[in-house]
């Protein structure tokens, strides 16, 4: 069957199935199981109202449970097992973790991930704040915002191609077609550099790609927060003789610190999962490995599900504090 037809059928089936499920299950509850008539009318209506929320929730809960909650548990289990030749699994305790801890590539990935965690959220938030403040009061601010926000729509793979062109290096003596090398030569650099193959610094060239993408996100949210600052506080500061920088750092930033934290943690999550950029640009060569790519290597190249699951658990562990913090905040707000 042609995939397009299959796609259309899936849409029809999925949408029709959903609508049909919700419609008929409601009908069933209201008319057949707990009909709102007869001698038990009050009891029936009450019972129908107890059941109904779960009818509405059932498909979502099923999908969430199967596709997100169960895998967490299953990955934990797999990380403690090992495939035995001939099929099946055996429990091996922490052996996978021990094996992983003995690999240089793992520590390199962990170290790089921490470097990413230090640089990318900070740089994106800082640039986002700068962009938000700069574009806030100028006449062409909305166009500027749109253009800085645009990389958000570009895939990590597309961004990888875009930036590989920026970092491109040609043999010495010939004309450079990568912007970075052209500028480097223009300002008196001697030989063109293959930027992505210089250990340690190449990680920063990869990070630039993610900063470029995430700055727009930070800018949009921080710009909304800046606009929410009460005008009086700024006016009072001006009356008291505060300069523009004092107003920004002493008056505005403290008032939006909550939003800055939200932006920071959101980008942190993105950084922890970063995969496509490294996979497409260096594939972890030249000491640029990160956890998500290390895990992919283990899973689909080395075909080692035990160690792969163990490294996935490491990512989960790093995400955990943010997860707990988010849930805590959400619960506090609902009270």
């Amino acid at each position: 069957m042609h995939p397009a037809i299959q796609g259309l059928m899936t849409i029809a089936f999925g949408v029709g199935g959903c609508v049909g499920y919700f419609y008929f299950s409601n009908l069933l509850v209201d008319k057949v199981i707990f009909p709102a008539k007869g001698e038990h009318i009050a009891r029936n209506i009450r019972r129908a109202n107890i059941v109904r929320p779960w009818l509405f929730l059932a498909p979502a809960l099923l999908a969430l449970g199967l596709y997100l909650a169960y895998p967490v548990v299953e990955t934990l289990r797999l990380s403690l097992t090992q495939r035995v030749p001939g099929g099946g699994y055996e429990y091996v305790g922490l052996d996978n973790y021990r094996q992983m801890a003995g690999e240089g590539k793992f520590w390199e990935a962990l170290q790089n991930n921490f470097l990413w965690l230090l640089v990318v959220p900070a740089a994106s938030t800082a640039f986002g704040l700068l962009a938000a403040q700069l574009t806030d009061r100028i006449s062409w601010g909305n166009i500027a915002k749109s253009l800085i926000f645009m990389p958000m729509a570009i895939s990590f793979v597309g961004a990888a191609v875009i930036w590989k062109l920026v970092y491109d290096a040609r043999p010495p003596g010939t004309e450079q077609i990568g912007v970075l090398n052209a500028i480097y030569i223009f300002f008196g650099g001697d030989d063109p550099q293959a930027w992505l193959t210089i250990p340690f610094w190449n990680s920063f060239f990869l990070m630039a790609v993610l900063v470029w993408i995430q700055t727009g996100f930070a800018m949009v949210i921080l710009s909304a927060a800046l606009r929410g600052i009460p005008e009086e506080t700024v006016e009072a500061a001006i009356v008291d003789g505060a300069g523009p920088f004092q107003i920004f750092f002493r008056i505005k930033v403290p008032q939006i610190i909550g939003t800055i934290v939200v932006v920071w943690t959101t980008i942190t999550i993105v950084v922890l999962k970063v995969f496509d950029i490294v996979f497409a640009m260096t594939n972890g060569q030249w000491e640029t490995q990160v956890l998500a790519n290390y895990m992919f290597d283990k899973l689909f190249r080395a075909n080692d599900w035990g160690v792969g699951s163990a490294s996935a658990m490491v990512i989960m562990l790093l995400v955990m504090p943010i997860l707990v913090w988010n849930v805590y905040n959400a619960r506090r707000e609902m009270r």
Partner: protein
Amino acid sequence: MSSIAGQKSGLVWAVHLSAAVLVILWLFPTVGLLVSSFRTADQIATSGWWKALFPSQQNLTLRTAAPETQVQADGLFVIEGSLFEDGSSKVITVWGTNAKGIDSYQPGDTAALRRGGRLTVQADGSYRLEGEEEFTGRRGPRVFVTAEVPPEFTLANYHKILISGGATDNMAKAFFNTLTVTIPATIIPILVAAFAAYALAWMEFPGRALLIAAIVGLLVVPLQLALIPLLKFHNGIGIGKGYLGVWMAHTGFGLPLAIYLLRNYMVGIPRDIIENARVDGATDFQIFTRIILPLSFPALASFAIFQFLWTWNDLLVAMVFLIDATGETTVMTKQIVEMLGTRGGNWEILATSAFVSIAVPLFVFFAMQKYLVRGLLAGSVK
């Protein structure tokens, strides 16, 4: 007083200038890709794309037509023609007849050739070579010209990528595969999430707060954890790698954000509207389909855009759940990654493919930016 006013306008200038620098910095890489996709492989390899926007100086070594084309007129042997191909808009600034003096003559000048004959070259490349004696030899004499070449762009790359290219260069199939993945994976989660969000926003039942907290938690669970268990599950129930699996996976992964966004929006719908409908005898199902769904359109649109961008741009989920060994179902992101590996130097192919893949999301982005921003604000600012 005047000094303060001066300072102010200085600051305004600084703000405009820094904003402009920031925008240019952010735009520059993408423009590079776009410009490169309209250049030939030769052009890309020999000069930076930023030079493509301006006329460039080129030193060319050309030849006049061969002696066999000469004609006799008024007792002279004459060869006439143009140094450039038809329709060229190159303009000659200086020219010469040997490698040591490539700038000896201006356009319109006449040079005496060492082997006999006089050559006149005009700025547009047309020339006249005449002599009293017959010209001999197989090829015409060489002419060294310095020409001003206007910017030149071509659509050939797009033709190759979309229509005529071979199996590895042609993106048409991958484009439709991506579309096939994206559309069901965008529509289905919206529907499932909308019902759940309504229940979480407007129905009272024990455990509701706990469920909401769980969904907030699931929002940040890395999908890396889901890869192996779900691949095992898909193989177990017999759907293996394919569209069905990738649709289901995208639905599952998109649900927490969908439910979260929609619930936050639905909670904000005035209670009166819903209570009035209840008093009038509407069932929950009617309230949901007739009142809540139409009112929630902005939130539905926000999520639809997120999910569309995310599924269109995705690489990991497609590689794990969709693309099998035959590569029949490859998506654009995967194909571009492969090209990066095998055709790393062919920038005309790479740039064009990448631009084909980002054109659709960019269009959606600019067309529906309002909803995207609204969704972002609802999703993260609390």
